């Protein structure tokens, strides 16, 4: 209890120094949380498209029913194909109208005859889709165009990978800044309390006893910094949740799972605790030797 009082006194006597340390920690944890959330969001979008591998085979006009059924059966026979759906010209018009229902100008001139019929193919394994695409590209008399999400997935994977690299560099940089700023602040406080430490040592206080308030102070910086940094990012994300989810629709970029948020909060608290403790431990070991 005495050490907590002691630490509180340290914080109170030099509030601006403490504030700088907490703010630096906060900025670092804000950036860390932001990367975590963005990375999770991109991964969730990526997973969505990965778990729903799909290609659309647009068909040429004028194909008879037997040809269509034979082509559908041929696709369905390929292993690991989940579903083959035939979308007729009429159904395509329905989908088109539904998609553009708020823009009558785009729908009034369109008829079923100008839209192609298609097969929507989904598979358990995205690699199968590539084989399907290659196989049907060769059937020029049957197929008009093939569209599948490989490009989108590759682009998303590229973004996620780049984000991870940037995150490592930025977080390392801000981690180092937080370490040095907190070190300087705690170092200054130790220097300011040199006489008090020296008197306590002469009265029989162990090295650990005189270091303890500074260790607690470092832990407080870490815990408060991580909590505030996390909360700021959480609030920001919550305010943009609808916009982000609409943008990435039908995938979900911002999850509503409370467990996800609690889990990351606990992880960041732990990181804050370790960073604060390590910083204050290193500094107090360096400055308190007598």
């Amino acid at each position: 209890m005495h050490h907590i009082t002691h630490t509180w006194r340290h914080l109170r006597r030099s509030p601006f120094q403490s504030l700088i340390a907490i703010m630096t920690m906060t900025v670092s944890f804000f950036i860390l949380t932001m990367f975590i959330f963005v990375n999770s969001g991109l991964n969730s979008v990526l997973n969505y498209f990965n778990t729903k591998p799909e290609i659309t085979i647009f068909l040429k006009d004028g194909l008879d029913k037997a040809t269509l059924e034979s082509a559908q059966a041929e696709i369905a026979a390929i292993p690991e194909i989940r579903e083959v759906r035939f979308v007729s010209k009429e159904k395509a018009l329905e989908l088109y109208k539904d998609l553009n229902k708020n823009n009558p100008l785009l729908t009034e001139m369109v008829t079923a005859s100008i839209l192609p019929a298609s097969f929507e193919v989904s598979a358990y394994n995205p690699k199968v889709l590539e084989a399907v695409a290659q196989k049907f590209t060769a059937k020029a008399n049957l197929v008009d165009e093939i569209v599948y999400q490989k490009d989108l997935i590759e682009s998303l994977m590229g973004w996620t990978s780049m984000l991870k690299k940037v995150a490592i560099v930025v977080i390392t940089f801000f981690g180092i800044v937080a370490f040095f700023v907190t070190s300087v602040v705690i170092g200054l406080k130790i220097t300011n309390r040199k006489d008090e430490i020296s008197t306590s040592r002469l009265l029989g206080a162990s090295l650990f006893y005189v270091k303890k308030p500074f260790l607690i102070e470092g832990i407080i910086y870490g815990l408060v910094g991580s909590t505030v940094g996390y909360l700021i990012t959480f609030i920001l994300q919550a305010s943009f949740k609808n916009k982000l989810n609409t943008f990435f629709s039908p995938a979900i970029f911002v999850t509503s799972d409370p467990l996800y948020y609690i889990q990351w909060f606990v992880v960041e608290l732990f990181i804050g605790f370790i960073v604060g403790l390590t910083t204050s431990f290193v500094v107090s070991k360096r400055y308190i030797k007598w």
Partner: protein
Amino acid sequence: MEIKFDGVSKNYGPISAIKDLSFTVKQGDFVFITGPSGSGKSTIIKLILNQIKPSSGQIEVNGVTPKTQQEIDDNRRKIGVIFQDFQMINDLTVEENIALNLDIVDYPNDQRLVAIDNALKKMKLQNRRYLFPMQLSGGELQRACLARALAISPQLILADEPTGNLDPINAWNLVKYLKQENELRGTTIIMTTHHTDIVKSLNKKVIKLEKNS
């Protein structure tokens, strides 16, 4: 607590502070260390506290020469110190200063308040309890320092020139408190002073140092 100096010398570079000093202070003794300025009185106090190491010779505390930091800390926790410059912590009240010392020596929690009350009462500082050291007079500060030392019920009190900054009345009062502590609780007292009248009138053991001894 018994202190034994055996052929102890302490040099600060080319300057010899004490040279080949031997003496024994037994449990319950009241010993004055006298001598002119620069004769090494404060050096002896620092050596007992292990604040500095002897250049040669041995210092035993209760028959053992403390070697590890743990042993040094353990010994310090049995000693009540009255520093020449008080060394009270300025942003703690008198009560908090005493409480800090009790915490350092790991005094039983449930007895701390009683120990503080008793020490303040003995030193007639009850009404100065919540004041900061800067708000006390020289005499009060010295008594607060003694209260901090007494509160932990030490085995040994080291008083380094405790009367140096005091007027004759306060100086006598302080010595009276130390004598009382020595007689009532059998606490060993080592006090450095250059007030010869105090030394003479108390008729206790004296270690007399000479400059460049």
